[in-house]
């Protein structure tokens, strides 16, 4: 019998409460957080932000956390270890409780992808703040973007001016009229807001969304290439089913120390990432539309600070 959504939600929230009671700095993000911020999305996974310095304590807790009597396993052979060294470099760890229909999946981040400010500074109950959740949703998946806009609109309606950074719907951008109302610093961060009453808004908005898509596509490519030697090494370990999580972890750490770069994005270069995204964009949009792109450097500054 599968777990109901209410049971899953209780399981994850209880996990967060117990983690925090041990001093782990963590917060639920993505789909489950979207529900709290006014956009319904049903998901089987729990995406969790965990401060890199808390990863050791969280791993200990996961080892003790059973679902229907069973502890979790690391999920998949590409999953890096839940370890501060790799978490500071933007890697994520994945765990699963998988037993005859009772499934729960936990995806853990150390850094919020595209986060422009430390997520730890703005936690709301069990959840990361809406600004962080919206920045994390700017992926290369088209299905995520309506959620970004919905959260941004909710923020603006509640009086948080940062909502203007998250509106990616032309009609709504015109309704909120950032050119007339947005603070000066936000107009600098997102030049397209100046175009709220301008016919150039549509192509410029299209270019901006495509730019974020390209940034994410290249970022993922960097990590996927960096993980291959680790994946090859880990494949040789052939652990039997039921291996304790601590043993699974020790083997992953050993493989990672030899084969997994801690910060592939820093090695690659953020400037190079941005230049390649602009280059790819130039194949798709008119230069006049690309003139309104934001400076995205601030969204990658938290890597290996």
């Amino acid at each position: 019998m599968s777990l109901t959504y209410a049971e899953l939600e209780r399981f994850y929230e209880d996990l967060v409460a117990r983690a925090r009671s041990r001093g782990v700095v963590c917060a639920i993000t993505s789909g489950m957080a979207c529900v709290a911020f006014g956009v319904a999305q049903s998901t089987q996974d729990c995406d969790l932000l965990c401060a890199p310095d808390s990863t050791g304590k969280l791993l200990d807790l996961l080892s003790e956390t059973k679902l229907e009597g069973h502890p979790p396993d690391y999920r998949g052979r590409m999953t890096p270890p839940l370890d501060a060294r790799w978490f500071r470099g933007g890697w994520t760890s994945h765990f699963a409780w998988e037993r005859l229909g009772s499934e729960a999946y936990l995806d853990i981040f150390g850094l919020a992808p595209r986060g422009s400010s430390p997520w730890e500074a703005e936690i709301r109950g069990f959840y990361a703040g809406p600004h962080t959740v919206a920045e994390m949703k700017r992926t290369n998946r088209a299905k995520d973007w309506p959620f970004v806009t919905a959260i941004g609109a909710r923020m603006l309606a509640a009086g948080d001016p940062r909502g203007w950074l998250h509106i990616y719907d032309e009609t709504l951008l015109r309704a909120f009229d950032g050119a007339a109302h947005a603070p000066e610093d936000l107009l600098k961060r997102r030049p397209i807001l100046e175009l709220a009453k301008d016919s150039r808004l549509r192509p410029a908005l299209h270019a901006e969304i495509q730019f974020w898509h390209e940034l994410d596509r290249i970022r993922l490519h960097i990590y996927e290439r960096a993980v291959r030697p680790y994946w090859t090494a880990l494949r040789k370990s052939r652990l039997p089913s039921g291996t304790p999580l601590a043993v699974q972890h020790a083997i992953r750490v050993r493989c990672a120390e030899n084969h997994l770069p801690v910060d592939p994005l820093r090695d690659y270069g953020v400037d190079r990432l941005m230049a390649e995204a602009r280059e790819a964009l130039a194949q798709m949009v008119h230069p006049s539309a690309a003139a309104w792109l934001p400076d995205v450097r601030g969204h990658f500054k938290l890597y290996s600070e």
Partner: protein
Amino acid sequence: RKIVWPPAVRRKLRRAIYDFHVRAFGEEMARVNFLPLKERRRYVAEMYDHAVRKGVKFD
């Protein structure tokens, strides 16, 4: 620096946001998204449980 919208503007924006939800998520989900949190969570739970019963695989 919190924005304080005049009541008339607030009403206009609320309508614009609702219209966006209809465009992006459809009529039914727009209605759900404007429910109070407790009711929205209950709806999401029903939606998920129904999908699991039908054998839907999540991404």
